[in-house]
């Protein structure tokens, strides 16, 4: 019974936990959080099972309500989103474990509400990854965005303003998405992605695809913070609430990118007339994004802001893969999506831990912090090296696939930009490493001098990220094989 309903149960279990969390927190103050964490753990376990099933049996089509395909809502789990769901639930689980240390107000209402929103954010992300319906995607997008607005607004007085600005821009994006959905619905009369793809490929729909593309690129560009649309992102990532920042920064930007892939490659396909323009536009945006993000990150003194700008650059890597379009490059993009989630998540876990212990995020205060927090700094270093793209970490291999895809298509300029961007990354990440290991001790006062380096629940995420970065790096070929099960039929 569970095997047959895995796709939907992965989403429903955290949803139920979220809905009941407030009630349970009223009964016992720890019950609500425990239920949320357990629910996310359950969905992690189920997502791993699901990945196994998908690899063994091929894509799962799950029709909700048992209605025939274009009439009801359908979940389609192929090897791509099965992997992404595992990634989301892993990071969701470790952030749910980690976030509790940052709750300052422990009244049951607020504590329960906080856990509710974390669980709903995870639900929304999982839903975005699994759904096969255009309008359902919008609903999940809004759940994700609303909980993100709230979590960003919890990050102090700056956070409110950034959340408000993000809300305005994010709603524009959602509206543009709806306009594009309306155009596609108007042309095809269906909302199911597979059905839509079938209809679009059967006739001459090039103009409508071009037009909806014009709305989709800004929509997803805003949500994933690609270069000309990234305005909201640095301040939002900087001032987001500390406990959930890894989740927001690590995962939230990836799902719109994934949805973009679904639209451009699975629905529109690669043989419509304007696909070259699409790729060119995406390529220009991602190249600008990579250079601009890295250049801006170099000048920041606040580690959070530095990492936020670096996210702009890293999103550029992901969309660069879409701009190249061969299966290998797309696999590189997806590998980067997964790897970067752990890298950026890990970096923000470390930043949060440092802030939790010493109350600072200014880079100039980080002198020789490694003596006090060796494990944290170990992850910090590994994640930073991965960002730069030093083998054998995850970042190198995604770059390899992107570059080899670009070389196959003779996009030499993309290879040059990849090289330049990773050198710029090296500049600021080695600045970070220099601060952490070499500079003079700034004499920070430890708020929690007793006991081990960090509480156990904060160490777990750090260790998991560490293992994941190296693991993804070493076993990338297996992951790429799994990704190529689907991607092999999609790309150019």
């Amino acid at each position, binding site marked *: 019974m569970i095997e047959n309903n895995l796709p939907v149960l992965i989403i429903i279990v955290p949803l139920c936990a979220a809905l009941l969390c407030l009630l349970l927190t009223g009964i016992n103050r720890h019950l609500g959080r425990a239920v949320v964490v357990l629910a996310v753990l359950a969905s992690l376990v189920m997502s791993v099972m699901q990945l196994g099933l998908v690899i063994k049996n091929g894509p799962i089509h799950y029709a909700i309500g048992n209605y025939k395909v274009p009439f009801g809502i359908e979940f389609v789990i192929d090897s791509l989103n099965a992997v992404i769901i595992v990634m989301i639930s892993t990071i969701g689980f470790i952030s749910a474990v980690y976030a509790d240390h940052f709750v300052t107000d422990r009244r049951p209402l607020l504590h329960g509400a906080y856990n509710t929103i974390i669980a709903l954010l995870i639900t929304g992300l999982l839903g975005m990854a699994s759904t096969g319906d255009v*309008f359902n995607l919008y609903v999940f997008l809004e759940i994700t965005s609303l909980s993100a607005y*709230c979590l960003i607004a919890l990050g102090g007085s700056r956070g409110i303003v950034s959340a*408000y600005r993000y809300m*305005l821009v994010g709603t524009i994006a959602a509206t543009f998405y709806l*306009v594009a959905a*309306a155009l596609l619905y108007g042309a095809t009369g269906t909302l199911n992605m597979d059905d839509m793809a079938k209809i679009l490929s059967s006739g001459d729909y090039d103009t409508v695809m071009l037009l909806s593309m014009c709305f989709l690129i800004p929509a997803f560009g805003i949500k994933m913070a690609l270069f000309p649309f990234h305005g909201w992102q640095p301040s939002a990532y900087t001032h987001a609430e500390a406990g959930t920042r890894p989740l927001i920064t690590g995962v939230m930007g990836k799902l719109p990118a994934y949805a973009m892939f679904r639209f451009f490659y699975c629905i529109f396909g690669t043989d419509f007339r304007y696909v070259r323009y699409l790729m060119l536009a995406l390529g220009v945006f991602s190249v600008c994004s990579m250079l601009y993000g890295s250049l801006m990150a170099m000048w920041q003194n606040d580690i959070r802001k530095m990492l936020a700008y670096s996210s702009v650059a890293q999103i550029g890597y992901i969309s660069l893969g879409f701009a190249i379009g061969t299966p290998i490059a797309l696999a590189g993009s997806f590998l980067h999506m997964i790897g970067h989630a752990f890298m950026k998540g890990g970096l923000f876990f470390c930043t949060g831990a440092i802030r939790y212990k010493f109350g600072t995020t200014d880079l100039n205060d980080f002198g020789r912090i490694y003596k006090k927090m060796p494990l944290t700094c170990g992850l910090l270093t590994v994640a930073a090296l991965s960002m730069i793209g030093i083998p054998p970490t995850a970042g190198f291999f995604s770059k390899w696939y992107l570059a080899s895809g670009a070389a196959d298509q003779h996009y030499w300029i993309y290879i040059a930009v990849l090289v330049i961007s990773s050198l710029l990354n090296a500049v600021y990440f080695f600045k970070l490493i220099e601060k952490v290991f070499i500079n003079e001790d700034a004499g920070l006062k430890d708020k929690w001098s007793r006991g081990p380096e960090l509480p156990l629940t904060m160490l777990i995420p750090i260790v998991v990220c560490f293992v994941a970065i190296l693991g993804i790096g070493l076993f990338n070929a297996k992951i790429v094989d799994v990704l190529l099960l689907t991607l092999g039929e999609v790309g150019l």
Partner: protein
Amino acid sequence: MMITISTFLAEKGIYLLTFILLSLGVAGIVTCNNYMKKLICMNIMQVAVIFLFLCLGQKSKGTIPVAVEGLEKAADYINPLPHGLMLTAIVVSLGTTAVGLSLLLRIREKYGTIEEDDLLMRQELLSMEERQRRKQELQRIDT
């Protein structure tokens, strides 16, 4: 030529007006300096999209989508799907508005203003203050 324009207006004129409303909403969000107005414009923008969807489901001889005895053909009823979708969209927009308003309230309480340029100026002042305080603290530690 005139025929084309009039046909266009008859067949697609509503789209034109809807798109104008949509673009006015976006323009309002971008240009208005007042956060409250931006929020209202956001709502207007969402309403425009709802129109767009409803236009798609129009049928010139259709009646409202509640089954009546004697009317069996699909052409007799207006397409119910956009209505269902738009109910969801309206609710989502209400949710967004509620969150936006509570954010607005917090901004007003914290900064005393909801004008964007004023707010940014105050944030700038705030960060300058913070920097100075930090500098002073450092000096105190040194001495």
